[in-house]
């Protein structure tokens, strides 16, 4: 029998009040400030900006504070916030070749113009916890080296000249970059839409898929051709002015993955590429994105689709952590009526089963 019920307003109100209290924690401990989160939890801020798909460090910090450090909850908050704002337009495409570089490495080419710049990396640390960080001790100023500034070309541009490596990806003449925030996705996708989805995709999900390609599921022998992190200018064309305006700079991480090279009837063998570009400093995400981008190009490159990482519909449909968490976590909401219906169904099935069993027994006895 279906009985409509409602209730729980007071419980919900009190639960939210309790949440606010627990979020704040012990009042004897000073409240964390947004600029502390921006400055000292900057990679968490970067992740929220990347997967929230909204570049604004203060907003991401606020979301992290409100979400008690639950980054997927923070990403959800940022996604919800963006829906309240109007869209002014689309920027001109940012020029990563003109980046002010903070880190730039290539695992494939030792001697490249501009050199290997390690920047602020966790690489080569010993991953030993530092007890001194428990105190707020002084931190030395970084070293400086006087070196003339030089244009630092992308590795793929240096290598591209002799056709050893494929060119940057082009789309058919006259095509406009798809925007999944405006149009629902319909498969199959073009590479531009896949890259948009991957750029906002869950780091952990993409990392796992990227790892699967290394372990042999859609293997493509990747090299980190180049990883660069730094600030790029953002420009916007607006109706009221005749020139593109510079709006400021944002930090991005770019990964050029260089992969194997089968070639085709039309193309001689050459290195193929996967591309990653992510808001903020996030090498792991940019590398995972590049590996997934390369795997998802299977159809375009005429490769057999044998592995999950090559399955565009599977990867892109499940890469968004706000969608994923929404559907997984909705199971917590009351399903009392659904469950009641299934309970009734099982009771009927069991009664049926019992009856058949008994009739069977009786028939057996009669036969004996």
């Amino acid at each position, binding site marked *: 029998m279906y009985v409509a019920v409602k209730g729980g307003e007071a419980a919900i109100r009190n639960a939210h009040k309790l949440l606010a209290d627990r979020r704040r924690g012990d009042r004897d401990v000073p409240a964390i400030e947004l600029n502390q989160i921006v400055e000292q939890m900057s990679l968490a801020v970067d992740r929220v900006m990347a997967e929230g798909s909204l570049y604004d460090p*203060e907003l991401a910090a606020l979301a992290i504070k409100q979400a008690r450090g639950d980054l997927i909850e923070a990403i959800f908050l940022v996604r919800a916030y963006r829906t309240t704002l109007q869209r002014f337009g689309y920027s001109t495409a940012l020029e990563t070749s003109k980046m002010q570089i903070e880190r730039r490495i290539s695992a494939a080419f030792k001697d490249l113009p501009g050199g290997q710049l390690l920047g602020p990396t966790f690489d080569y640390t010993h991953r030993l916890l530092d007890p001194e960080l428990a105190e707020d001790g002084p931190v030395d100023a970084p070293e*400086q080296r006087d070196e003339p500034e030089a244009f630092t070309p992308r590795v793929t541009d240096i290598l591209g000249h002799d056709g050893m490596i494929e060119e940057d990806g082009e789309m058919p003449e006259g095509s406009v970059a798809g925007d999944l925030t405006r149009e629902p996705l319909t498969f199959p996708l073009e590479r531009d839409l896949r890259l948009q989805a991957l750029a906002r995709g869950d780091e952990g999900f993409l990392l796992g898929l990227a790892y699967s390609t290394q372990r042999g599921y859609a293997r493509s022998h990747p090299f980190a051709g180049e990883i660069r992190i730094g600030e790029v200018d953002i420009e916007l064309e607006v109706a009221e*002015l005749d020139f593109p*305006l510079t709006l*400021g700079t944002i930090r991005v991480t770019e990964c050029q993955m260089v992969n194997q090279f089968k070639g085709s009837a039309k193309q001689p063998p050459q290195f193929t590429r996967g*591309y990653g570009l992510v808001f903020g400093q996030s090498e792991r995400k940019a590398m995972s994105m590049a590996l997934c981008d390369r795997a998802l190009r299977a159809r375009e490159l005429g490769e057999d689709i044998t592995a999950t990482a090559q399955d565009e519909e599977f990867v892109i449909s499940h890469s968004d952590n706000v969608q994923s968490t929404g559907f997984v976590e909705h199971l917590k909401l009351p399903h009392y009526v659904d469950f009641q219906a299934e309970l009734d169904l099982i009771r009927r099935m069991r009664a049926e089963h019992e009856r058949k069993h008994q009739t069977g027994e009786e028939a057996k006895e009669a036969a004996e």
Partner: protein
Amino acid sequence: MIKENNQSTETGNVPDLERKAAMALLAQATAPEIAAFWAGWGDKPDVETLRGPETGLVMLRGRIGGGGAPFNLGEATVTRATVRLGNGAVGHAYALGRHREKVRLAAVFDALWQQPDCRDAVEKAVLAPIAERLEQQRALKHAQTAATKVDFFTMVRGDD
């Protein structure tokens, strides 16, 4: 939309490039910095706000492979404002972030910069200090990054 009466609509003409550079600096001013410049500005004009300051989104675009076809990377918050001074001069400003008062003041300085009799003062009192700070930050970052450059040494071979 308020369209300027530019002498030339060709992109890349000198007045446009100069104004583009000026507006780029104003967009990169910090909120306290530009507030201080305004506080120190002598003969303050009447300012009427024609639009905003209002915050919205710009979809930022990357390029496939770094230099190929554009794709949509993700959005950024952007604030814009348009003001008119007492003498009718119109100024615009757009900047990343949500600092409304900063962007309103940037639009005021854009309008002032377009006045031939104010331009020098804006360049000296506002643009030059912003440019200097940005250059110092850039040079410092460059020097700090350069210190992490790997110098490869050829190992002495042990077989002779």
